[in-house]
């Protein structure tokens, strides 16, 4: 009864009373048991929070180390020659404060969800990221779906048909996908498929004469569906195809090569040979034994690729006039818009940390050894 009453009690409450045995005491001060999977998740959440704090320090310091005065980028030639205007601008931006004060102001604002205001457009950075990030998410999801389906299948096929013509062909194609410059592929793709063949619509997320759907998620395809605008949905989907394919080319190449090598590592293991010897159907051997065994390193690459796709693709976004976070970051960098640079840096850092966190969780589910360790 006493032990039962002490379950989940504090350490002070667990101090043994007179007459209790040493063994009982040891049992009582032991911290409550946590399920290994829950402990695994909690540890990773803690690590993620520390990492995000680290990202704020790194983005803030690196941004402020740029040996250029952001006021120069804001003011025109005439205004920059007026010391009064320069001083007022510096004060308005808080640049007249010591760096440490600026950092803690930044951190304090950050904790209240305030990423600052763009020096150039004077719009809140969080609002702007809220506008451009869904565009990158939509493009990233499109690209990763195409990449995962094609990359994994081609990689698996290539490994199973090792050293055949098919294997060589797939490896050559994947090499082209990895090495072809995205900007070139995007420009040529746009010229051929839009201008010459007219099989895809032009640049942008929608045709210019179509009004975007009411914003719910910011993903035009989803918002169009939610508002029942089927014409807008098909238009948005059409606009998504070519940029997604262009962006997916590199990732397809990467995933094909990675999954091929990962499958080849597993295919030679004893348990696969044993499964084959038992006469199990090929499909079962391939998907239940080989593919599942090869999945852990592939998940890592998919996670990293997805993080990279979500972080924006400046060149693809530029060619297709896709107003995503890549273009936003590029403009912020070229105009020395410090709040924008720090805001984007932080968001991208969080995206990577989140993706890695999710990948870690998937490891835990896919491979029980991971969560036990």
């Amino acid at each position, binding site marked *: 009864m006493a032990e039962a009453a002490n379950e989940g009690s504090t350490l002070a409450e667990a101090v043994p009373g007179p007459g209790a045995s040493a063994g009982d005491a040891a049992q009582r001060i032991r911290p409550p048991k946590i399920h290994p999977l829950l402990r695994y998740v909690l540890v990773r959440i803690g690590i993620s929070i520390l990492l995000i704090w680290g990202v704020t320090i790194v983005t803030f310091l690196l941004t402020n180390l740029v040996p250029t005065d952001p006021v120069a980028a804001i003011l025109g030639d*005439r205004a920059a*020659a007026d010391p009064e205007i320069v001083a*007022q601008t510096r004060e308005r931006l808080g640049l007249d404060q010591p760096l440490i004060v600026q950092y803690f102001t930044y951190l304090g604002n950050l904790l209240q969800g305030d990423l600052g205001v763009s020096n150039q457009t004077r719009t809140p950075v969080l609002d702007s990221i809220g506008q451009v990030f869904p565009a990158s998410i939509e493009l990233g999801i499109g690209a990763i779906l195409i990449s995962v389906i*094609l990359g994994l299948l081609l990689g698996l096929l290539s490994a199973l048909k090792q050293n055949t013509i098919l294997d060589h062909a797939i490896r050559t194609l994947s090499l082209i996908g990895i090495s072809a410059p995205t900007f070139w592929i995007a420009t040529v793709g746009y010229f051929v498929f839009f*201008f010459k063949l007219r099989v895809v*619509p032009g640049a942008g997320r929608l045709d*210019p*004469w179509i009004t975007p759907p009411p914003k719910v998620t910011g993903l035009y395809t989803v918002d169009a569906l939610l508002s029942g605008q089927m014409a807008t949905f098909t238009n948005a989907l059409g606009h998504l195809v070519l940029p997604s394919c262009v962006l997916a080319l590199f990732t397809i190449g990467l995933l094909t090569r990675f999954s091929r090598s990962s499958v080849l590592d597993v295919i030679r293991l004893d348990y696969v040979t044993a499964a084959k010897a038992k006469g199990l159907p090929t499909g079962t051997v391939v998907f239940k034994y080989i593919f599942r065994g090869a999945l852990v390193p592939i998940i890592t690459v998919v996670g990293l690729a997805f993080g990279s796709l979500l972080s924006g693709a400046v060149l693809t976004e530029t060619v297709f006039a896709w107003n995503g976070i890549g273009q936003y970051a590029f403009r912020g960098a070229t105009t020395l818009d410090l709040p924008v640079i720090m805001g984007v840096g932080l968001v991208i850092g969080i995206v990577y940390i989140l993706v890695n966190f999710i990948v870690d969780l998937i490891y835990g589910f896919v491979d029980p050894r991971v969560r036990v360790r």
Partner: protein
Amino acid sequence: MRRLARATVAICSTLALTLGLAACSGGDDDQAGGAGDTLVAETAFSLTTIDPHRQFEFTGSTIDNAVYQTALEFEDGDLTKPTDGLCSFEMSDGDKTMTLKLKQKDAKFSNGDPVTVDDIVFSFERLQGLKGNPSFFLDGVDVKKVDDETIELKSEKPNPALPYILPNSSIGIVNSKVVKENKGTTDEKDEAEQFLNENSQGSGPYQIDTYDPDSQVVLTANENYNGPAPKYKRIVLRNVSAETQLTDIQSGQAQVAYDLNSDQANSIDDSMAQKTSLPSTRSLYIFNNMDDKVSDITTNEDFRMAVTSAIDYEKILELSGDGAQRMAGLVPNEFNGAVPKDQAPERDLDKTKELLEKSGYDGEEIPFHYSSDQSVNGVDLAQLAETLQAQLKEAGINLALKPAPSATQLDGFRAGEQPMGIGTWGADFPDPSNYNVFVPGGSVADRVNWDKDASPEITKLAEAAEKADEDKRGDAYAKMYKSLSDTGVWIPLVQPVDTIVVGNSVKKYVSNADTSFDFAQAE
């Protein structure tokens, strides 16, 4: 194994078919070229705001030209002829006083309110009080309402440039009542910028429908506009790179492309688009620092003149495309006060050799700064710098190229730390007095440490030009700017060309140096 191969082929085919169907469902050829009354214009955005009294970039100016009327205008876009806009004007008191009389009494803002003298006074005072980039336009000007039809602008010094300044879209007239209701003031406490970005308060042919400084701005016709109703009821101005503009204009996806360089424009078949080339209002030049501590060679006049005679200007013209012009001074050729271009220097390598010997230059490398990410009317500054490096090397002058992003390069230039490099200047208003900043002691001259007392002769010529009568002003300024070029501190390189490409679905349009492309007059 074969089953897997078949499955892979099936999945790939299904995916390709799905993507193909999705793509085709998005493309609609019937809509190409805009949907009836929509005109699509494309430019690579330089847009931070469309609050007229704060904006100072090309994209903002393009939008505000369509949204706001101004007190004065340029006659048919001719930058040498300021004429009546919302007001008529008269200069008096030795160009110290300008009297404006409200002329367009039927002008109305987009909400139907009439345009009044109070709106004009508020707009002028707000521009001054915000202390923003365009505030200098009305520096030293006292604005006073005389009565319900008259405004008086008094300047401290003779201000013959004022008629050339007032047509600027940064001095657009806003609805003072509504702007004040939305935290608009005539000092730095003003908080109406966000409101003016999303709700235009002008009396021009268009009003703002949606504003996204990163992606696109949509304008719709202002039903209360007192001029002829525009044919295109909706204008979509999109942020698109020059390469994509080239494809879009040929395909009919867009009808106006602003950023194509001369080569790109010439690559378009005449059956697809019309091209208009206008002399740019920007000047490209080489600067030489006048501080011994920064460079002891660029302060040497013989060296600077050696550089001047070492440049192959014809090659620079070729690089800048058809329609680019030589410059003998910093003022664009079409402006009053420009130095006639036949006085521009020519390449003379014998003269260069002689001057280099006199200068004592021993072949040392001179850091040469420029913005590596900037293109001025299609002239890529990186390419221009490399060309100059090669040309000067032929003459025995060694440049060490120092490329940097615009913001970084500009910062170093403004700090007066760069010995030599490429500078650009875009006219704020089409008057020679706008180029006074290059005179010793001027704000740009400060960046090359060229002090006020450095050249009494030029200072005297500048004072004479400032005081000259209207009929002698042009010659006086031309004389002064020629003497400026003769020092070699500024070496004018080229006046580029501004190319506008318009799709053939637009049957009639007006394109001029003032507005580039007039949305309201396109048919």
